């Protein structure tokens, strides 16, 4: 039996508040973190992703105190990303209540860190987050530092490498679709899902429930993340799951 599709909201955190941008830019404030966590808790969402979008750019370590406060109210699985540079950062995040961590820039610079974290805490808690852009010529490229640094890496190859280093999951985010609500990049999600045998979370571009169905069915995603859709429209994770169930997908209620 295949696993249930996970529908997960992404909360982006920047300078003490929740934000949502477009193409990793033009951030808008979307409200208090604790309020959002409580609402998602009450609605029993499948999982939460919480990313501190400016930590790496500002060369800051993760805000452990903030994650501690969030995790105390979060009785659902919590993945935390942003600013993670070392195995010790991971230890401290898990200690204050994160269930999984998402690592991006530091993993590109030194893939060995994936192996080191997995060896210490198990592969299941290492999510490798891959931000990518599709260039005009159709070529895909991985970017780090919140979309600012080009790496020359191909996302499919990098996902394979990350999985071989013992990543437990891949979080795939399309930078140019981020915040546009025009749909996920189904093509690239499919290419990555077929290249690795760890779970793949599709992210970037969700605006309609139909987008989720498409990236699950045609993109073979195991989970669908969304942010703008929940912040700026009437759509909710619960309604998303109802829609997916009607379409014949296996979801949790």
């Amino acid at each position: 039996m295949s696993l249930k599709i996970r529908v997960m909201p992404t909360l982006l955190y920047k300078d003490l508040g929740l934000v949502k941008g477009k193409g990793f830019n033009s951030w808008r404030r979307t409200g208090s973190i604790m309020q959002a966590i409580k609402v998602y808790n009450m609605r029993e969402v499948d999982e939460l992703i919480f990313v501190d979008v400016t930590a790496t750019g500002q060369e800051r370590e993760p805000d452990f105190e903030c994650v501690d406060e969030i995790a105390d109210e979060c009785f659902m699985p919590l993945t935390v990303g942003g600013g993670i540079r070392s195995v010790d950062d991971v230890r401290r995040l898990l200690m204050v209540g994160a269930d999984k961590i998402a690592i991006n820039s530091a993993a590109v610079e030194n893939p060995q860190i994936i192996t080191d974290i997995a060896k210490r805490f198990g592969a299941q808690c290492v999510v490798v987050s891959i931000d990518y852009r599709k260039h005009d010529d159709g070529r895909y490229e991985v970017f780090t530092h919140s979309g600012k640094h080009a790496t020359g890496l191909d996302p499919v190859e990098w996902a394979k490498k990350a999985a071989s280093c013992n990543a437990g999951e891949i979080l795939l985010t399309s930078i140019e679709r981020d915040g546009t609500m025009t749909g996920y990049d189904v093509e690239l999600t499919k290419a990555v899902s077929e290249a690795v045998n760890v779970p793949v979370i599709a992210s970037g571009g969700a605006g309609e429930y139909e987008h989720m169905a498409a990236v699950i069915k045609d993109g073979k995603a195991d989970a669908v993340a969304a942010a703008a859709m929940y912040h700026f429209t009437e759509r909710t994770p619960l309604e998303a799951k109802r829609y997916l169930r009607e379409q014949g997908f296996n979801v949790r209620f």
Partner: protein
Amino acid sequence: MSNVVIVDYGMCNLDSIARAVEECGGNPTVTDQPRELSNATQIILPGVGAFPDGMRNIRERGLESALNDEVIGNKIPFLGICLGMQLMANSGEEVEPTKGLGWINGDVVKLKAKGDDTRIPHIGWNVLEKTWDVPILEGIEEDRDFYFVHSYHIKVNNEDQIAAYTPYAGKFVSSVCHDHIFGTQFHPEKSQKVGFQVLKNFLKY
């Protein structure tokens, strides 16, 4: 008043379980001191991480004999969660073969994919198939989902000690039970209402 001792053996994720115990009406104490175990009304062994590190930490802190004294000797109700459940086995094969606590007659082995669409680690929500109405799973309907995040599972030799299976990678043992000793591969502290029901069942056992 209850004194639910949550054993800190350096394998993290103590906050979530302590908060969940509080929410379920229990009074948690997080400690790495062996002597504190003697004041426990219940003991919880949580854990995320690799089997050998877990056992080494337990031994280095002198917790193995304290656990044996209280759980086996004084029959204090015990709940192992995820790695905490796996450590009750005779042995684990993760990273390097390691001897476990030996309370459950079984061994911890890697999940093996069955068919192309089985992805390992097993991450997400899945159901339990109860083998009998074990106390900690009382009142839990079979279609309820629990949160799993793991790559290894316990293979139990003694069928009486199996409390539930979960249908994934074939099927694996997702809960064990031996008298007052319980274990869950899933995370009750992260499984929302239905998870809290499991913790409440344990706290009143």
